[in-house]
């Protein structure tokens, strides 16, 4: 899932500006694959342990200490943002998740601008509920 030009991005209520895109990736941390005595193909597959990774890519301006100083791996925070099909609030949808930052990486480009990639792992409140909620 990818969200281009998301709006109103906050981390623990603090605005996170100049975010170009947010991606949501899901994958199985552990797969259960069972075979029978009847043949070579699995007869049961399940993903009992999964992870939801949320990645934010944003532009950095020169010397932007603000929120950047707090974006350290291991920090847990509430991430929220909205998207809408156009510039109005019509059909806007809100997304939220509790995340733990796993990496905050900065790439410096030749023209002097920089891009920050913020990688996070979403945390479920119960283990059973989806860590990424859409309202």
């Amino acid at each position, binding site marked *: 899932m990818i969200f281009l030009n998301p709006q109103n991005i906050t981390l623990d209520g603090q605005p996170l500006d100049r975010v170009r895109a947010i991606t949501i990736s899901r994958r199985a941390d552990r797969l259960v694959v069972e075979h029978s005595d009847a043949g070579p193909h699995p007869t049961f597959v399940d993903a*009992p*342990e999964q992870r939801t990774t949320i990645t934010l890519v944003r532009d950095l301006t020169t010397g932007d200490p603000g929120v950047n100083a707090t974006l350290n791996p291991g920090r847990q925070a509430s991430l929220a943002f909205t998207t809408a099909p156009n510039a109005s609030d019509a059909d806007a949808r809100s997304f939220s998740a509790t995340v733990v930052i796993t990496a905050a990486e900065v790439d410096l480009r030749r023209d002097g601008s920089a891009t920050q990639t913020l990688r996070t792992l979403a945390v479920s409140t119960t283990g059973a509920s989806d860590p990424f909620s859409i309202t």
Partner: protein
Amino acid sequence: MSTIAGQALFNSGPHRFVIKPVGMLIVPPLTFDPIQTTTNVIVPLELSIMQTGRLIGADEADLWAQVELIRTQAEAQLTGTLVDNNAIQWTGMTLLRFAPEDRADRGRAVSLAYRADYIRLAP
């Protein structure tokens, strides 16, 4: 589909059977004492069959009800003909042990991997 003594205890999920080593029970040299220079052949090994698989429950209660039934039957030493998924039969097998793996898995389904052991006990 498999059964032990006519009971289908494990058919909620996939499972497999393998026969464990057969032949004679032997004692290698130097086991009993330093002057034991030859292999001692004791008795024929008991026929032992290992089953590995996964129980799948419709929900938590269903899964643990299956586990409880299997525990009861293992403690009662349920004995009879073991019929595997390919209709191969072993007579006089006793369900002696059911060992779940270290965790129940909760994904799309609630499931539990296990190992079960059957032995044809000497009369």
